[in-house]
């Protein structure tokens, strides 16, 4: 009995004595973290750039497996003696899975016969898996289309948000969205991970996910602003974020768990895709808590706006 009463006392103390101030501190810390992450990502993108995958650069990619593990340096030198022109060798799965990339217009393209020849000459047991050719024109078109898709997605979201929310709330969601996209791109540039079409798809999915979170919090924020007139803005934001926290954590948790299974079990082709989504959900959760509700507070959203509006639209807007 005494035990439970101590716990409930403690809960009481965090809930009542320091009402939301502590939480507010964490939220602001998160906000600054998000800002510094954005800056870091921009630096990364500016200096290192993205390691564009075959989908965007065009060229040839050949994938094969060897039955035994072979030293990468040895493979590199052996390939170099047989292959004229530049190539890029990557290995995976304990040096049994190999990927060779060549640029479009290279003189000496690997095909099945070449691989068979190489197998007999080097004595390796080689099984071809996948071979891709993408014309450089197709690649550069895809960069345009991909960029356009990101832009169209951002604009469509902006239009949707301003129609749905007050502009300061929309602004907060938009900054959170830009943060999520930039941080994932920044991560890819700092780590030098290949950015291909599936990663672009992941980034677009992140845009949807990020807004999903922001909207839930925005809705709550609006609701609290309408009902609680006596609170100051910071406390309103805190209580809105807090009451959606459980939901945010559960949804992010299950989503991260499933993305985790794709990462671990999905095999090599989905690696970059899973990493992008995973990072997007982690940083998206951070930004939805710390950014999307903090920005409106910083640029002067206050409860009067919604109380005023609620009176105006009393009849047709809300029940």
């Amino acid at each position, binding site marked *: 009995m005494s035990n439970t009463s101590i716990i409930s006392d403690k809960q009481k103390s965090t809930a009542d004595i320091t009402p939301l101030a502590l939480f507010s501190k964490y939220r602001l810390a998160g906000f600054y973290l998000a800002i510094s992450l954005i800056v870091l990502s921009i630096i990364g993108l500016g200096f290192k750039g993205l390691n564009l995958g075959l989908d965007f650069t065009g060229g040839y990619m050949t*994938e094969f497996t060897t039955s035994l593990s072979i030293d990468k340096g040895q493979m590199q030198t052996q390939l170099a003696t047989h292959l004229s022109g530049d190539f890029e060798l990557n290995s995976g799965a304990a040096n049994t899975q190999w990927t060779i990339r060549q640029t479009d217009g290279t003189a000496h393209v690997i095909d099945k016969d070449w691989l068979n020849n190489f197998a007999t000459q080097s004595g390796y047991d080689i099984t071809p898996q996948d071979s891709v050719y993408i014309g450089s024109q197709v690649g550069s078109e895809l960069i345009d289309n991909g960029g356009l898709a990101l832009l169209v997605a951002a604009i469509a979201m902006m239009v949707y948000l301003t129609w749905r929310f007050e502009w300061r709330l929309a602004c907060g969601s938009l900054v959170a969205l830009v943060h999520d996209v930039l941080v994932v791109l920044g991560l890819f540039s700092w780590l030098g991970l290949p950015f291909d079409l599936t990663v672009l*798809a992941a980034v677009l*999915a992140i*845009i949807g996910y990020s807004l999903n979170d922001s*909207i*839930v919090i925005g809705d709550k924020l609006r609701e609290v602003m309408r009902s609680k007139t006596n609170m100051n803005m910071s406390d309103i934001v805190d209580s809105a974020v807090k009451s959606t926290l459980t939901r945010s954590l559960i949804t992010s948790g*299950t989503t991260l768990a499933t993305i985790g299974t794709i990462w671990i079990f999905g095999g090599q082709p989905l690696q970059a895709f899973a990493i992008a989504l995973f990072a997007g959900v982690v940083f998206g959760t951070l930004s939805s808590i710390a950014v999307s509700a903090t920005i409106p507070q910083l640029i002067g959203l206050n409860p009067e706006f919604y109380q005023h509006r609620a009176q105006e639209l009393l009849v047709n807007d809300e029940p």
Partner: protein
Amino acid sequence: MRKTTAKPKHTWQILVIIITVVILGLNAIPTLYGNNNALLVSGVNSTQPLPSIQQLRDVMLQQNIQVKQIINGDADSKIVIDGDDEALVHAQQQLKSELGDDYQVRLGNQSAAPKWLQELGMSPIKLGLDLSGGVLFVLEVDTDRADQERLANAKDETLQIIHDHGLRGMSVKMAGTENNLVSKADVTTKNPVAQTETEGKLDLHFLSHQAAKVKAVVTDLQQRLPGITYSKTGERSATLAFSEQSITTFHHEIMAQALTTLRGRIEELGITEAVTQRQGQSRIRIELPGVKDPEQAKRIIGATASLDFYEMANSGTMGAKSFTDEDGRHLRVAPKPIFTGSNIENANSGRDEMGIALVNLTLDGIGGKKMSEFSRDNIGNPMVTIFSEYHKNSADEMIKNSRVISVATIQSQLGNRFSITGLDSPQAASDLALLLRAGSLDAPITIVQQRTIQASLGKENVNNGIMALAIGLGITLVFMGLWYRKLGLIANTSLVLNLVCLLGLMALLPNVVLTLPGIAGLVLTVGMAVDTNVLIFERIKEERKRGRSNFLAIETGYKEAFATILDANVTTMITALILLSIGYGPVKGFAMTLSLGILTSMFTGVFVAHVLTYIVKPQIAVKQKELKA
């Protein structure tokens, strides 16, 4: 439970749910069974009797291939075998050599699901290349080049008309001839607008006293080539060009022709499950599942061969074309062919008495008529057969390579059947026959993207995907069950139903293809679909804390959370649709499962879960101290 469902208020909702789930569930079942490999045997002529089942069975038995089923259809026999792609190709070769040239043996597959399901018209989800293995080609149709050729033809026509009218001194030439062809590749990519201004036109020059007669020439020309426009640019000059609309129609026709031709060629290759579709403005995407020999496929699909039959030009002919044959003789032929490869109905390779390879041709009605008229009037005159092909040179430019196949003297009036002789090899003859059967391509095509995925890699991808899905689903189900207890059970039921509906919907809808990123989309959908339930449940808890009764809390929870759920899903839908519009192949599969997943998760998460909650009637307990005043 029965008692609650008997409540008249929800009967129709329960009915809707049961019907939807049963229909979609039935559609999902065949996917679990997968496909068996099959061979399709059909006669070259439809009148030919199909080989007996006994005969087919014997051939298979000799090769130690397990036959599962032989289905005799109207036009073909389907042999379903038990074995992988390797065995299938082996069986195909055996059958081909046993049955001879009179029969076609094509590769296909047959659903392994029980017969009653198949009879309901249900089939498994179509798998993308990254899951089934196979070859992908993306071809670019060079419409600019076709425009050039069309304009060149218009020039020849104009010259002929000017000649017919006897207007000496009037001349016509292609505009901007100095900078065409060679620099064209750069022009098209960098500045397509500027290009249309300088090129794609004919310059017409005439003497001042001929100005009145130009009108007649133009009217004549427009009669022969509708869509050509005339605009005067000076005292003694004018330009001729095809109208914007006519060019669009022309491009449309070229693409349609290319698609039909390529489909024909793929059929000739014996592949039934191929996907041939237009991708963007001027590209064609071809997916050939289970192809073993990409090089042969490439040679046949990528060829732009055309065959034209010409009359020799006499000295008065304007715009005569000239070719050089193998012996170095210059041949001048009439500007327009008598008929072209498109008039060929059937072509077969063979050998003449001397053992030299030849191709036997059968012409269609129009071609036959043209041929018999021409040969009647020209007995004793030669006819020139020209074979043209596009290929790329080292500088990546498209070069049209025309070759004189034969210069034959017409011995007698010919009908719709005759032969082309003098081919290099039996292989060349059979390739040519195949290309002629499938139709020719006027616009050159190039392969801009190619991918060969081994079937083993596809199988591995499927296994990986299913593993990720199973474990992801497992974790989510366990978590929701532990966290929300009875409500979690409702969430889990709706989540499983969501997956069943999604799979069923994907099998039901045409053009939906499951790819590896598509499976990833499925897994992601599982993780995100619980969001709907979580939002509602949290809301219900909140309402309970405010002191509402159990029933009222549930009602308000579903009602109030709906707006938020709708919003959240609309945003994901927008991104999925944008993705759908830019992506092809694998990424399209991801966008597909994502967007369909949103629809089904809204249905199960809001509608099904709501009704389930009515039936289960969970008690949501709240601690007294949490109650707010």
